[in-house]
């Protein structure tokens, strides 16, 4: 059984339709990437799955139950975590405070939650008392991913984790995503960095203008970044 199945959803803002009849699936333990140009609707898709947006048509099935239109906080409690593109952390709280909210919300012990996050980026153990707003872009992304992993979520949705980051930092992110892949964390990732995509993806969906135009499941085909580029 699929962990997540999106069936023919449309999403519209007022009269403007952004997603047209989009269908995807994700199995437990897969790391699937969604690729496409800016404006293709990738963020909207993740927002619809996470409960921040309500589809105007279609269904989303998660763990065998229909979840389309349910509010984000409810879905988060059922194990779906969304990491947004803007890399916004709770800047007025400390790093520890950020983790505290995640631990409180998920019921996981604070110590364990902190360990989880610092294992991704050991320097955080020194930064716990620091205001989160002072972190660099890369550090914030890692904090956000760490926060999302607190409470062992069942489905992770990550929107453009490497956007705007320097090459060295991108490799850090790659390392973290690789670890997650080894631990079989089920993840949907929107990503435009094709090198990362080709090294990590189990499967890829390619989106254009609000529709899925291709699904790639063949590892060899995925490995060829040149081939991917031709679709964008």
């Amino acid at each position: 059984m699929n962990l997540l199945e999106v069936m023919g959803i449309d999403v519209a803002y007022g009269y403007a339709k952004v997603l047209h009849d989009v269908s995807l699936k994700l199995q437990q333990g897969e790391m699937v990437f969604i690729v496409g140009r800016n404006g293709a609707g990738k963020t909207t898709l993740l927002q619809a799955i996470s409960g921040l947006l309500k589809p105007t048509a279609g269904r989303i099935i998660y763990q065998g139950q229909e979840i389309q239109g349910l509010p984000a906080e409810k879905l988060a409690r059922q194990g779906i975590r969304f990491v947004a593109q803007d890399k916004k952390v709770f800047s007025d709280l400390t790093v520890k405070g950020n983790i505290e909210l995640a631990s409180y919300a998920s019921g996981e012990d604070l110590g364990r939650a902190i360990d989880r996050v610092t294992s991704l980026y050991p320097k955080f153990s020194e930064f716990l008392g620091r205001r989160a707003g002072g972190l660099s872009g890369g550090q914030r992304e890692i904090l956000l991913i760490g926060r999302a992993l607190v409470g062992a979520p069942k489905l992770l949705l990550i929107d453009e984790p490497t956007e705007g980051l320097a090459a060295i930092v991108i490799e850090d992110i790659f390392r973290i995503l690789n670890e997650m892949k080894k631990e079989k964390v089920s993840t949907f990732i929107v990503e435009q960095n094709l090198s990362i995509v080709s090294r990590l993806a189990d499967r890829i969906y390619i989106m254009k203008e609000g529709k899925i135009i291709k699904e790639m499941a063949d590892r060899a085909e995925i490995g060829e970044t040149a081939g991917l580029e031709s679709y964008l």
Partner: protein
Amino acid sequence: MLETLIYGLTIGAILYFFSIGLSITFGTMQIVNFAHGMVYSVGVYLFITFLPWLGKFFPFALALAVVAMLPVAFLVERFVIRRLYGESLDYAIIATYAVLLIGADLIKWVWGAMPQPVSDPLRISVRFWEINIPLYRIVVFLSAVALFLGLRAFFNRSIVGKIVIAALEDRPGVRCLGLDVNKYFSIVFVIGSGLAVLGGVLYAPIATAEPYMGFHILLVAFAVVIVGGMGNLTGTFISAFVLGLVIAITARFWSQAADTMVFAVMALVLLKNSLLAAWRRLTGMAARTG
């Protein structure tokens, strides 16, 4: 003069108690909540009613009045404020104003339109440099300071406080962790309302209660919140006392202008950016045509 300053600080303290809830509601829900005045005035009238029942024991009556109003505040938040979240500002203003209006009429109905005086519960004065200052006013001032420190601790250290701070900046982020932001904003709203009642009751021995008291303090409170910055806790604290002093000092020299002076200050603050921009525009225009 010292008396005037003490009076100003006392008024400032009351303003702080009342305005902090207003400021937070604007910060969390982007709504100008006129109904805040309703909670305040009805709470004070309840206090006046409870006082004789409880053998004139001020603190009990105070606590009872606050507790009685908390569910009312919750109902207002749940059925009026929450429904207007995200909508155009006008509707929130009109709806909460309607609640205020209903409250004022309710007071007139139940308690009558005549003002009700309350006597100073402490009735002790303290001597400072040949002036008698009612101990009560000092207590009120200190309570406001205590409140400020308490709120700081609440927002910095308690989990609810942290959730609210986080949600103010990144509401979807908080939701995506699994936390129901509405619930926490609701809690803070009710706390703010309770503080308004507290402030009102503390004010009662200094002023008299009348059915439209909610309207009057609201006008001044708007000035406090705007001058201090909507949603800015420290700013509200400072501006409450500054404006309290403005009222007291103006009242000393030109008694009828006291309230109005507050508006002049608010206008100046609101417009300092606009006045600068307007000035630049004017001089810019002059430069172009000249």
